[in-house]
């Protein structure tokens, strides 16, 4: 006779061992690892190629403007918008117009009085702005020189420090991204595990393994062991996905704002959510005994999960999410997102976590009763009401 805990451990260990044998588990883990690694590495690799590159044709015409000086100003100002420019000469305005239409160049500048910028409608706004500024600057320089200033004096005037830009609420976008990612991960993982648990229980019932096992161990370890075993499998998948993130942090890389706090704080709700949903999925799985019925029996839970996911992913700081943060079925997905966007208060976190713990305890009791009564009643699909009423 083994203890409750030892029996639970043995049941969970069997689930893990069987999962480790399945090729699907390793394939999923490898896909997650590679996908996550790519998401961590690629942005850095591609970052250097971030600068745009423009082709600009210049029609000198009979303008008095000094061409070399203008080109140098254009290069400087385009550089200020993080782009490079390749300058070429066009013989006349018609040729330049044709080059723009043929997309041989992005923009053409005809140095008439006043200068004309040729561009296809609705394209290269930033470049056009930069070119206008370059033309104005060159006109200003020419004017100052004509007014008798020396080249050094002109340089001194133009090298006045540019205005500093102070960006506000910069973290908001990345925090919302973090909330979206967390909700998605929690949703996908809980959904997959829920079906896996219900499936496993139904198959054991159908194969009559549960009858053999119930003569050896109590119903509790059979249900809880399966939930724990499959939850660990899910967390190993999660770890495969998280490994590249951890490596990047250890190597001194930057994470999206809010992701760190949300993962640390959200782990609590994540664990509670997995426990809540998987316990109930196990009880529901005991109502049926065929694999094809197992996914349909958890459908009501899936709907709740989907609703919680949308609330967490799309509007984590809305008043609705503030309410859903306290509901144990929705808090696992809403709460980490609220932490990520900075909408969760300390009191809210404590109360929400306590309510979730209570819900898990209640779910464990109810699931235990349903499982133990339903697992020996074979033959037809049962209803929760019938099982609890008997």
């Amino acid at each position: 006779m083994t203890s409750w805990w030892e029996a639970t451990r043995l049941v969970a260990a069997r689930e893990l061992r069987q999962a480790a044998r399945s090729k699907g588990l390793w394939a999923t883990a490898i896909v997650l690892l590679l996908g996550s690694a790519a998401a961590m590495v690629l942005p850095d690799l591609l970052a250097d190629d971030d600068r745009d590159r423009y082709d600009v044709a210049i029609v000198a015409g009979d303008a008095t403007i000094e061409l070399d000086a203008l080109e140098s100003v254009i290069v400087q100002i385009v550089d200020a918008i993080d782009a490079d420019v390749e300058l070429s000469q066009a013989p006349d305005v018609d040729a330049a117009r044709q080059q723009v239409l043929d997309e041989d160049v992005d923009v053409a500048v005809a140095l008439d009085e006043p200068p004309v910028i040729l561009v296809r409608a609705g394209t290269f706004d930033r470049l056009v702005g930069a070119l206008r500024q370059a033309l104005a600057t060159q006109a200003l320089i020419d004017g100052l020189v004509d007014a008798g200033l020396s080249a050094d004096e002109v340089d001194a005037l133009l090298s006045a420090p540019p205005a500093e830009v102070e960006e506000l609420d910069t973290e908001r976008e990345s925090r919302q991204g973090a909330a979206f990612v967390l909700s998605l991960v929690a949703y996908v993982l809980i959904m997959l595990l829920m079906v896996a648990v219900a499936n496993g229980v139904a198959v054991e019932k159908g194969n009559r393994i549960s009858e053999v096992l119930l003569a050896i161990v109590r119903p509790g370890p059979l249900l809880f062991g399966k939930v724990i075993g499959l939850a660990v499998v899910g967390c190993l998948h999660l770890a495969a996905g998280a490994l590249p993130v951890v490596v990047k942090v250890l190597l001194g890389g930057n994470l999206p704002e809010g992701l760190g706090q949300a993962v640390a704080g959200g782990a609590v709700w994540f664990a509670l959510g997995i426990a809540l949903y998987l316990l109930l999925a196990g009880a529901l799985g005991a109502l049926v005994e065929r694999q094809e019925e197992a996914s349909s029996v958890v459908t009501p839970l899936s709907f709740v999960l989907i609703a919680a996911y949308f609330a967490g992913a799309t509007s984590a700081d809305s008043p609705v999410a503030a309410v859903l943060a306290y509901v144990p079925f929705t808090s696992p997905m809403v709460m980490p997102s609220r932490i990520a966007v900075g909408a969760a208060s300390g009191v809210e976190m404590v109360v929400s976590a306590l309510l979730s713990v209570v819900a898990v305890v209640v779910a464990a009791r109810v699931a235990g009763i349903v499982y133990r009564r339903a697992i020996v009643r074979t033959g037809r699909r049962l209803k929760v009401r019938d099982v609890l009423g008997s």
Partner: protein
Amino acid sequence: MVPGRSVHTGAVPPSLVARGIHQRFGDRVVLDGVGLEVPPGRVVGLLGPNGAGKTTLMRILFGVLTPDTGAVEWDGRPATDDDRRSWGYMPQERGLYRDMPVLEQLVWIARLHGLSTADGRARATRLLEQLGLADRAEDKVQDLSGGMAQRVQLAAAMVHEPPLLVLDEPFAGLDPVAVAFLSDVIGEHVAAGRNLLFSSHQLDLVEDLCEDITLIDRGRVVLSGNLAQLRAASEERYLRVSVQVEDDWVDPALATVRSRSAAGSRLRLAPGTDPGAVLDLVRAHGRVDDFGVEAPSLSELFLDAAGHPVDEPNASDDGAEVDAGRAP
């Protein structure tokens, strides 16, 4: 509680006793005051037609179901969960993880019973050798034939050397070689002074195996006791002859034809009838190479006690569907 062992307090090996078991599923009474005793060292058969309530009674013995009333005792006191989990149970419908290797599965079950991995492996290996499956230890259950899987199921019930082994319809679907093989295993178990209960609806098949019987029909015990004594105590006598006897060969006041088969006929003698006189009447119609006067068979005992043959269709399938079962 010592791991893997049921504590047995008396000097005499313990008995399993069930008393006054009532079980109702909805409006249907499945067991109506059933009692049963399984003393050590004896092969006890729980026998009756499909739907009699055998599987339900076995599930109650194991605490998988809780009866409406009645008690299950072990070693003279109410059976505890720990007692029950020290026993071995082979259910009617086989239950093994199909995608798990044979030996690993047996060791895992042994560990659930509280054995160490080393002990579990040693016992499972020995059992597999005994059951002729040593070379299939690493195969998955799904790669075994039905008969082999059945032997693994038996090994799963015995891997922790249970003091009490309960087998629900162990002979169903077995070929004669497998029946003989299983009978040997059962014999060895009780020869070691342990308890054994099995159920069957195939009374002719298990006739020679049973020492004690409990005949059950429609949820009630119709006859129970030591089989040899029950047969001896019966006033019924049968004349077996190796010829197909027609109904009009013998005066019905002396004997009636009970059954005919390729091997001959079986006539039930009226009380006080001289078997020799009936034999003479049969011989007048045909040559008799073999004959004998016999006590009633198990099927005949059942027919006399229940009032209908054991293979007569009954209310509903036993155990396959439990409509409103309750676990403890």
